[in-house]
């Protein structure tokens, strides 16, 4: 590796790789990739004209369009909170990026309680959503915000419990040591139930299909995003996709052995490849499933995922006892 002085290296890590620069590029790619993937499922073409290759610059074109639009604040809205909420969401999402190493040498931080901080940041995001919903002063926004609050709080519990299994097995809350402890076997093989629970809870946390209940458009327009337009909407969407990327990386590192892989491919690239596969897996339901109803979502969360995550912890404890 090139030998730069350590403060410069830190700055490069935060701004370029694996921090902000790379993540935002990956997020733009994800937006394009999702649209193309969905188009293939639906026998359409998808983005085609922006950029030389298959409309790959379409997300950038969209972002520029959103930048150029007027910022509209509803007259009855709470102006300060209305404009603050998207920034808050973006802040929460981007903070997650600091906690996810792509490899031991490409890590912004390696906190000994990294997973815990990530969970804390995730459980703060309903707050930002409720602020946005309330500040919009719109009935549909309010309903959507409350739905999001209910959904995220009830799925945060199975999410945390499914992580608990991994933490018990690795004996650490640091993502670097969790990945390193998978040298022999990936955790997805040792605790498949936990992986499934984490996967579904992540979909709910991200408000992705079939859990896009807070933004069910035929019932409540766009849910808590209804009143947002222009770049505020752009920030909300970017924040959502950054969170999507971060959670996909976390899934990769908790269950799929992160950067562990055969030699010729460098470790960070392994993380990226696996993340890409996880992202694809999380996008596919959007082409296959309709939306759940809110009571069915609760039922799934409390009567299936929560008991399953507890079962997973029991299985993990037995495995730790038996395998040592």
């Amino acid at each position, binding site marked *: 590796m090139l030998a730069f002085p350590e403060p410069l290296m830190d700055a490069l890590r935060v701004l370029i790789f694996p921090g902000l620069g790379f993540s935002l590029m990956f997020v733009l790619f994800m937006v394009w990739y999702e649209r193309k993937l969905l188009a293939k499922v*639906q026998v359409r073409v998808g983005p085609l004209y922006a950029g030389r290759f298959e409309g790959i610059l379409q997300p950038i074109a969209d972002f520029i369009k959103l930048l150029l639009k007027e910022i509209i604040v509803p007259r009855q809205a709470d102006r300060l909170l209305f404009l603050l909420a998207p920034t808050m969401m973006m802040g929460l999402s981007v903070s997650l990026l600091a906690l996810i190493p792509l490899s031991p040498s490409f890590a912004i931080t390696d906190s000994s309680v990294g997973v815990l901080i990530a969970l804390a940041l995730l459980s703060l995001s309903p707050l930002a959503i409720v602020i946005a919903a309330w500040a919009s002063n719109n009935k549909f926004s309010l309903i959507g915000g409350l739905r999001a609050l209910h959904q995220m709080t009830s799925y945060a519990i199975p999410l945390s419990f499914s992580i608990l299994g991994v933490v018990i097995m690795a004996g650490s809350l640091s993502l670097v040591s969790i990945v390193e402890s998978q040298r022999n076997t990936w955790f997805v093989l040792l605790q498949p139930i936990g992986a499934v629970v984490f996967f579904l809870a992540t979909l709910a946390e991200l408000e992705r299909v079939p859990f896009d209940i807070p933004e069910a*458009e*035929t019932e409540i*327009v766009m849910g808590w995003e209804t009143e947002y337009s222009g770049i505020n909407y752009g920030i909300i969407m970017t924040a959502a996709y950054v969170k999507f990327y971060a959670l996909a990386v976390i899934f990769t590192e908790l269950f799929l052995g992160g950067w562990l892989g055969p030699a010729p491919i460098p470790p960070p690239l392994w993380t990226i490849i696996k993340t890409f596969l996880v992202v694809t897996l999380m996008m596919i339901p959007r082409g296959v*499933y*309709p*939306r759940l109803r809110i009571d069915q979502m609760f039922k799934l969360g409390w009567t299936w995922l929560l008991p399953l995550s507890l079962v997973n912890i029991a299985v993990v404890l037995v495995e730790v006892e038996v395998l040592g």
Partner: protein
Amino acid sequence: MSELELSIGPQHPGSGHFRLIVHVDGDIIVRATPDPGYVHRGIEKQAEYREYLQNIPLLERPVISDSNGSVYGYVLAVEKLAGVEIPQRAQYIRVMMAELNRIMSHLYWLAIYGIFLGHSTMFMWPFGDREVLIDLAQRVMGTRLTYSFFVPGGVRTDLPDGFKDDALRAITFLESRLPEYDAIFINNPLFTQRTKGVGVLRSEDAIRLGVVGPTLRGSGINADVRKDEPYDAYDQMDFDIPSFQEGDCYSRSLVRIEEIKQSTRIIRQILEAIPSGPFRAKQPALLKPPKGSVYSRVEAARGTYAYFITSKGAKAPYRLKISSPSFRNLPAFPFLMKGSHLADMPTIYWSLDYWPLEADR
């Protein structure tokens, strides 16, 4: 108990040109009041100022997704009034085109049901497949949606050369797609969860509210004008009227899927058995039917579509009244939505296949 009043529409992604005033208590709908009339165009009044032939393009405007079905009843009424004999071939062509339109309308319904339930793939697939049928219809009738093809005495033009092969290819393609719709949507566990037991309309309620069409058949009542009072060549066709007992959104969906299959059956029979001969009875272009009143009804894609026409012997009808299926299904809205979840509102709404333009006329 605290109620929140929501005005769903007329500017709402899930409402159409229509407003539904919904009072919710938490997630439960306390009452829903439909407020139609946003696209009232006075079509019945306009029809009094046009010649009988000029009324045909006007009268298919309320239902562009099923324009043959909407104008069919009018043409039959005028024929009854003027006493015109319709050639056998014209009858067959009309039945075939009406069934083709029924399939297209049901595919449209299926696509929109997909988007109402948040299933974007189901939105795209039937729309793409509908295009095949639209091309077929365009080859016969000249336009994509508003055909003005049925005229008193027969149809406007004869079938083009090689139509049978094209039609068979299109129908075979459609039949190959139906199992895929079942796989991704109708049998999707989340779809059955969302629709089974939702918006239950029992048969006695269906009769009391006077609903028609697939909504009525979804409640277990086997009523269809095509069987009950066959018009044109329907009495020579071999087809079934599907009906399901449960009366929920799921059985209403199954009725429409099953009707697509029955319509392809009818089209296949016609392609085999269509007689040769004139496609239109000889008659003057300016119709002046004798004095009298006439009532006629047909089974359009959404249900019984009926016309009542009074003639005073002039070149335009003295009075024309439309009874459209969407309007007759409107009383089911407040009945079905009361007590259901807010999320079931779009499910119930579109399971009735409500078409605001048709209801408002």
